[in-house]
């Protein structure tokens, strides 16, 4: 099913996540075996409460109280110290949230530069790098805006810029378009799809079946288990890694940003 020629980034073996104790005990993830290879764009679907977000949190090392085996880049996560896990979050993982999760009292550029702080970069280097990525996302003119001064689509683009500022290999997106209208959703999905084409591994949780067309693989979950796992032969996943943006596309982007 998956492209077997690429190395696995994430390997889950009989992964379980339990909430509550005694009578209230409940497995949000109930024995998942999953291998995710580099460069895949995975959409995780499923009804509310099926364990999608929990799975994403586990994959993002935000939740380490798990049963079973989780190997990230061939290293068991259970053996990693919390400091090491924080470093992996800082350098290898980029989070995109449904509710954007920007820090309201910081400007757009400070928000984008936030992950670089924990890499120990100087302020100037941080601002430079954040500014560069904001320009890529056509938000150069909004650098010193506060998050509340942006539209929903712009806010999410800032959040994506923040997730990417560290050049992470894995991007975890939890319903990235959940709070956006269809137009803004489309733009965000184009961004993600573009990232995928440049070789990033993307794992996206979504409720919206239309968005699965962007993904190279669709996993549906039910009651903490994987119900289906299908490879989508989509024209968008041509595996053309690190292709720069074309002239036409750039012009189109500019137009969109201006509007």
């Amino acid at each position, binding site marked *: 099913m998956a492209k077997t020629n690429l190395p696995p980034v994430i390997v889950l073996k009989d992964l379980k996540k339990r909430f509550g104790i005694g009578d209230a005990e409940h497995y949000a993830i109930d024995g998942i075996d999953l291998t995710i290879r580099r460069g895949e764009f995975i959409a995780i679907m499923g009804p509310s409460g099926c364990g999608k977000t929990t799975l994403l949190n586990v994959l993002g090392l935000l939740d380490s109280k798990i049963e079973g085996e989780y190997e990230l880049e061939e290293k068991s996560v259970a053996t990693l110290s*919390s400091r090491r896990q924080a470093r992996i979050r800082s350098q290898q993982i980029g989070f995109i*949230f449904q509710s954007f*999760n920007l*820090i309201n009292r910081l400007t757009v550029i400070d928000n984008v530069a*936030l992950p670089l702080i*924990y890499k*120990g970069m100087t*302020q100037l280097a941080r601002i430079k790098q954040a500014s560069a990525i904001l320009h890529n996302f056509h938000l150069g003119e909004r650098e010193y805006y506060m998050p509340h001064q942006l539209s929903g689509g712009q806010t999410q683009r800032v959040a994506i810029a923040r997730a990417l500022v560290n050049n992470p290999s894995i991007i975890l997106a939890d319903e990235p378009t959940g709070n956006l209208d269809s137009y803004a959703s489309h733009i965000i999905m184009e961004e993600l799809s573009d990232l995928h084409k440049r070789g990033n591994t993307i794992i996206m949780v979504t409720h919206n079946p239309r968005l699965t067309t962007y993904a190279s693989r669709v996993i549906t979950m039910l009651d903490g288990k994987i119900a289906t796992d299908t490879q989508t032969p989509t024209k968008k996943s041509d595996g053309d890694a690190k292709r720069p943006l074309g002239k036409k596309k750039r012009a189109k982007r500019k137009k969109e940003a201006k509007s």
Partner: protein
Amino acid sequence: MRFLFINHIQNAKQSLKSNRMRSTLTMLGITIGVASITAILALSGGASKIVGDQVDALGGNVAVIRPGAPSDTPLSDITQTPNQQQFAASTLTENDIDAIEKIPNVTSVAPMMILSGAVKATKSAPVNTAIIASTPELAESNDLTVQDGQFLDPELSPYTTVIGPQLSIDVFGTEQSIGKMVNIRGQGFTVIGVLKRTNNPINYNGVDFDSSVIISRDAGKSLNQGTLQIQQINVRSDTIGSLDQVIIDTNKALLKNHFGEADFSVLSGDQIAEPTNRLFTAIAGTTTAIAAISLLVGGIGIMNIMLVSVAERTREIGIRKALGASNADVVAQFLIESLALSIGGGISGYVIGYVVAFGVSTFLPFDPVFTWEIGAIAVGVSLVIGTLFGLYPAIRAARKDPIDALRQYD
């Protein structure tokens, strides 16, 4: 790591700025605490210094002999009333004076017998007016000068007296009182001299010369049923270099007189000022302890605000953790914030403390002192308070589960 630290400072600055009112009020708690401690230490330092300065001003060739064995435990002196020895029969005798006078290099020996009692003329003197019975050498050993008339003279009648300028005003209404009669413990004395104002109410003699009467040793003896009760002997050597030898010789001579019992103490330099300093240290210690309570309250204020801040910023903590902040990063962020509050409060408290100290010192006979120790105490105390009361909120912040933290909406 260094950049991270700088960033935490920038971050703290920003976060404190965004809650300006709250930060200022929290700092105020520490400011008040540190200001009171600074003012107390600066003033008590000034008070202690003035006695030492007087000893230095006399030229550093002064030794003082006091009755009673030298005490090794300063605490016992603090708990005793400072004047207790004045009520005990002194161990120093007239023989001792004679023995000291024979020591080479000694230029003046002035015994001081301090009596209390009624001093009257036109008006009564204040009740606690000191009556000092001494010898003419007192003028030399204490650098006393007369502005009018002359000092004690053994050639004259023993019932003559030299009075302080303030006392002269108190009992006669004028500083011009030569030839007038003053009644001391029922005995009439003729005023033969008025001292020049010294303006040193606090000194190692324990008396204010400006408002005391000085009578001759013999007159003092007769007022005290024929015995001399020596509270202090002031000895002056000819040079500073010979003072050490004079002290050794004095100790030897007195030990011989006292049959080998060291029931006296020969003091020089800082030791002379020590009993006075101990008293000020005791007072400063007590008041500092009280001021420390306000500091404690300030610290609790910091802790309270930091806990509120952590609760308010739970979501931010979650975001930061998701973006790669380790627990140590979160602890550092909040700890630096509380340290910024306490050190800010400490510095402003130090400045305000000195302003208060200078304000208060206009009513006091001494000035506050500037020492590096007081600055170090102000900064040190703020550091300790900031760390102590900031640590728990910071650890609490770091322990927050990132998933729960992200779920909280602000």
